[in-house]
Structure formats: structure tokens, C-alpha cells
């Protein structure tokens, strides 16, 4: 093979790999991504039950009820709307009423959110960026660290 043919073979092989990768990426991005919504958006957009989404907001004050077993019920709010959530399992360390939270799961037919994942936070001042942004838009954002964190 001449230099030219070899180079052509190389380029064809490279393009073939790139094309298959592009196909995989296009396919995966269509099917595997999960959209993030605030309670208000969930109410407005009529998200079909069974579609996997992330729901984020604040854990509504006074809403956390632990069941007999592993099930925990609470409500996620962005102050405009509130969605009841049911979750079975261990809650992250910093799960608290009034704190930001992101949950992942599906809506059931009655409009309740069945979460299978409650995202852990690493730090008490941490606010999931989506939640922070949504809360800012709602006008209820409070800068983290405000209110006596510095002792």
C-alpha cells in the first residue's frame, strides 16, 4: 500500500469509529437523560405519570413523616406549588425540612412523586444549582451562609 492508501485506510477506520460513537451518543442522549423540574413546572407542564424526572425544591416544613418501615413521606415545594413525595430507603445525612433537595423518580397517577433516589448533599451550605436557580426565579432565594452560620 502506498502512503496515500494507508492514510485513506486510517481515515476511513477513524471516521467509522467516530460515526458509531456519534450514533451511540445521539441514541443515548435521546433515551437516558433526565429532565429537572420544579414543583411549579410539574403542575404546569402536565408531565405524564411514569416518565422519569428529577424534582427539586425545598423540603416543606412540617411535611416529613416516617412510616413504620423504610418509607418516608415528605413534600417538595418551591413555595408556588407543592408535590407530595414518597421514598423508601435511607435519606442522605443532610436531609432536613426547609433545606434544598433533589429527588429522582416518577409521578404516579394521583400526582404523587415516587422517588427512588434522594440526592445527597455534601455540605450544609450546598444547594443544588437547579434548586437555587428555581428559587431565585420564585423570589424566595436566600444566600447560603446567611443567618448565623458564622458563629
Amino acid at each position: 500500500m502506498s502512503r496515500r492508501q494507508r492514510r485513506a485506510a486510517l481515515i476511513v477506520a477513524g471516521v467509522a469509529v467516530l460515526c458509531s460513537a456519534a450514533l451511540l451518543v445521539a441514541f443515548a442522549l435521546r433515551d437516558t437523560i433526565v429532565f429537572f423540574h420544579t414543583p411549579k413546572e410539574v403542575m404546569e407542564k402536565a408531565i405524564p405519570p411514569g416518565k422519569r424526572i428529577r424534582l427539586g425544591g425545598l423540603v416543606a416544613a412540617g411535611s416529613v413523616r416516617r412510616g413504620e418501615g423504610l418509607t418516608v413521606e415528605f413534600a417538595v415545594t418551591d413555595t408556588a406549588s407543592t408535590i407530595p413525595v414518597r421514598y423508601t430507603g435511607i435519606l442522605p445525612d443532610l436531609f432536613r425540612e426547609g433545606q434544598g433537595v433533589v429527588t429522582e423518580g416518577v409521578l404516579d397517577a394521583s400526582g404523587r412523586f415516587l422517588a427512588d433516589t434522594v440526592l445527597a448533599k455534601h455540605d450544609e451550605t450546598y444547594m443544588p444549582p437547579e434548586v437555587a436557580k428555581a428559587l431565585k426565579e420564585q423570589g424566595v432565594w436566600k444566600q447560603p451562609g446567611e443567618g448565623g452560620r458564622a458563629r
Partner: protein
Amino acid sequence: MITELGHFALILALAVALVQAALPAWGARVGDARLMAVAEPAALAQLGLVALAFLALTRAYLVSDFSVESVWANSHSAKPLLYKISGVWGNHEGSMLLWVLILALFGAAVAVLGTNLPPTLRANALAVQAGIAVAFLLFIVLASNPFTRIPVQPEGRGLNPILQDPALAFHPPFLYAGYVGLSMAFSFAVAALLEGRTDAAWARWVRPWTLAAWMCLTLGIALGSWWAYYELGWGGWWFWDPVENASFMPWLAATALLHSALVMEKREALKVWTILLAILAFSLSLLGTFLVRSGVLTSVHAFAVDPRRGIFILAILAVLIGGALALYAWRAPRLQPGGLFAPISREGALVLNNVLITTGCATVLIGTLYPLALETLTGAKISVGPPYFNLTFVPLMLPLLLAVPVGPLLAWKRGDLPGALQRLWAAGLAALVATVAAYAAVRRGPWLAPFGIGLGVWLVAGAAVEWTTRVKLLSASGAEAMRRARNLPRSAYGTALAHAGMGLTVIGIVATSAWQSEQVAAMKVGDRIELAGYELTFRGVAPARGPNYQEQVGLLAVTRGGAPVAELAPAKRLYDAPRQSTTEAAIHVSAAGDLYAVLGDETRDGAFVVRAYFNPLVRLIWIGALVMALGAALSLSDRRLRIGVPRRARRASAVPAQ
């Protein structure tokens, strides 16, 4: 006073870096040896000054000087000594200072060890290295100064408790040594482009630095993953989190660069590609720094949520990456193309490696940046999680891993594929046996998983076959094989070890992902759950007190078939400062895997939620990474690869390896 001295040293280092970035490069251009000679003392002075600044900051942490903002915000007088030290880089400002310290260290290493380099190449490389230092020193001095003073505070706010951990104390230094080590490849690539020529000697120079960086990066990522596994209490070891991807992408690029630099060194081929890869590898390191430090992604790593800093790092990114790529577009066509090779050859195999790894890296990049791009463009907020990466990255790696044992058995220039496959029959057999055995032993989980185990065994056995072929263990006499084994270059052992380590990691990943079992239960005293052949009996919860935390310790008695095996004590801790709770998983390690237990909240009726996992062979993931790093270390100790060996010495010892 000492703090101000450190601050002053930092500004002085910036001035020195400016000189080092300008004069030697100018000298190389006009051919003035005196100007070029400035680089060496400047690089050493820069290291001295940055080290002084770093020591000053470390001292402030050690004596708990709460008039320094960074110390006040991230330390506490009652913190154990190790975490006072690791607290220096456990925050944004200090970690950037560590970044620059390592950068200066690499620059000084070139100045000291690079006496055999062509003078213009050395001057240019050191100038580029100083250019990077200027950008980051400016960033530190202007936008994230660790020496900022505040009115003295009585007590510090403490370090985030999940960062108070031995693995995490060493995770950042290793990771940064890896990130920043790739700056050497970058500086040499830009220097080669400035000179308009590059050759095998260039690759011989760049490869050890890349190898050292790759080794540190491997260890840093492994430490981070190990920490996430036992500290975060999720029972997982990798989450395809954007910050993890930020460190994984440079690792992939560095892996590709190692292999393509090999082709360039041995055959003078792939020059233009290798230079590009060197630029890209460091660009991905910078991108990683940007993603992690800018606050674009919020996570445990995002210390900085100050948008000004993000824009500053973005500007550094644009100037360095954009500048290097523009220079590449301008000068790369001038580089002479190198040796020819057939598609089936060692070079061909290494090209395949490069194509697949860089494509895989691109899919990771897309998965990491797509949410950011989509939100910027449409406002829609999405998350790209493990399913995406399993669908894109994993399929691309499968052919690569299949090809790994074949590559080293192919000859340079034109290889004999049937011959290589024939020599690998034993490895193929081992892989087949492992596949069947895995299927017979488990009989559940995804049907592909046993093939994954077979793939891992194929890698390990393939590395063994490569070694036995090289030393003619089976065809020559014992004494001859011994002699060959002794004379085999250490880099050959390094390659075999690294490939075998990859195989171990693959086995660990496949086994854990496919066959992890999990139990969650609300347990009262005396309750029992069964998991993977173990019985776990809950014995209750007791309070305890640590040096700077209070904890609730659960006790689980573990038995197997009635015989006691271990006691697990998972805990929930509440730290004094900051008042934050953490989960401490309890892990019982055995050859078959890890029994992993986490204590959850108390339920209304007085039971405790307990989550237990069995993670089969999970340790192999990190053992494999260690073996890979060991392979790199062995290669680095090879006389022919050693940094600073004169060029002629290599030719004298260039015995054919096969």
C-alpha cells in the same frame, strides 16, 4: 508577619514567572544564549518563592491563625494534625496554591534535569511553563488570595467533615501532580511548534513526564473513588459525576498520549497527532480545573462559587488552549511526516488504541458538557447519568480491551496477526474458562457479565503471555529464560503490569456492577437479615465520642452458616464544627468481596434503618489501579527512559527487545 512574607513571596514569584515567560523565549528566537540561560535560575527561584508561600500558609494552618480568612473558614483548633495540614489544600485558595507549587516543581525539574536538551527547546519549554504559572499566579493573587486577612476570630469554622479522611488528605496532591504533570507535555508540544520541528528525542523527553503524570493521576483517581466508596455510604465507587469525569478525561487523554508518544519515539510516526494530543491532554486538565473550581458544577469539589473566579479561569482556558491550538494550526503542517507502517502492526494497534480512547474521551466530554450547553441554549435542565455513559463509553472500550493483549505481540512496521493470536491461545483459553466458570458460579445478573469477567482475565493472561513470549519461558532452557527475564527492559515489565492491572480493574468493575446485592431493612435489636450467604443480626445502637465528633454506633453481628465472621459497626457522626452529620460505613473485607453496612435514621417505632451491600470483588478495582501505577513506576525506573539520560547512551543500550 510570616503570612505577609508568604503573600510577598507569591507576588515575587509572579514577577519571576513573567521574566521567565518572556526572556528565554525571546532568546531562543534571536539566538541569544544569555537570554535563554535566564530560564534555569528563574525556574528555581520560582519554585523557591512558591514553596515559601506554601509553607507560610501551612504554618498559618498549623498554628490555627484565625486572622487569615482561609484558615478561619476551613480549619479549627481542635482538628487532628493531619487534617490541619490537608486543610491547606482542602479549600479553593489553598488548592490553587498547591496547583502552582506542583507546576513550579515540574518547571524546576526541567531546569535541573534537562541539561541534555537542545538549548532552544529547553528555553521555549520553560518559557511556556512560566506562561502557565503567570496565568495561575495572577488568578491566585487577584481572585483567590489565600493570605487575605480578617479581624482575628476566636475559633475557625472547621473543615467539611467528609473531607476529614486519610484518603482524601492525599487525593488532591496526587490528582494535581497528574493534572499539572501534563503541563510538561503541553509546554514541550508548544515549544516544538515554536521551533517548527520535532523528532524521536522530543518524544523520548515527553514520555517519562507523561508517564509520571499518568501514574499520579491513576493513583489520585483511585484514591478519590475509594474514598467515595467508603465515605459517602452509597455502596458505589464511581458515579459518572461531572467532577469525576473532569479527572477521568485527562487520564484518558494521557493514556492515549503515552501510547502515541511510543510510536513517535520508536518510529518517528504520528508526530502531528502526538503534538495535538499533548495539547489536548493538558487542555482537558485545565477544563477539569475550570469545571471543578468555577462553581459551574456544584459538588463537594466546588469550593468557589464566586462567578468572577469562574470567568477568570475561563479566560485562562481560552488564552492557553486557544493560543496553543492556533499555534498548532499554523505550525503543525511544517512538521515532517515520519515512518510508514502497515495497518496490522504495532503502530497500527497503537493507532487503534488512540482512536478508541480519544473517541471514548469525546463521549465523556459530551456527556459532561451537554447539560451545561443545553441549559445555556434552551434553559432546560437535565442530568446525564450512568445510563448514558454505559451506552456510549463502555461499548467503545470493549474492542480496545479485546485488542490490548494483541498489540504488544505485533512487530513494528508490519505485524503478523494470526501469529500473534496463535501465541495468545493460552490467554484465550483462560478467558473462556473464566467466562464459563463465572456463568456457572453466579447464574444471575446480566448475561453479558460473565463475558466481562472473561475480558478481564484475557487482559491479565494476555499480559502474562506477552511476558513469557519475551523471555522464551517455554521454548528456551531455564537458564536462558532467567537471563532473558533479567535483561528484559523494565519498561516491558511496566507495560505487562499496567495491562494486567487494567484487567484486574475490569474484573472488579464487572463483578461489582453486575452482581452487587443489597438489603435495606428497619431493624430492631435481635432482628436478622440475610445477604449473599451472610446473616446480619442487629445488636443495637450505642453513643460514642470521638476527638471532634459525637457518634451513634450500630452493632451488627455477622455470621455465615451460624459461625461468627465479623462484627460491623456502622456509625452516624455529628461533628462539632461545622455541625454536620456524616455516615460512616462499616466494611468487612473478604477474598470474595466486601460486606458493607450503613446505619440510617431511627424510625417512628424505635427501629433503625440499616442498608447492607455485598460488593463482589470490588477491591480489584483499586488493586488494579495500584498495579497500573506500579507498572508506570517500573517503566519510569527503566534506564533508557530515565529523565535526563544523554541521547547517545540510549543507542548503546538499544538491544532488540525480542
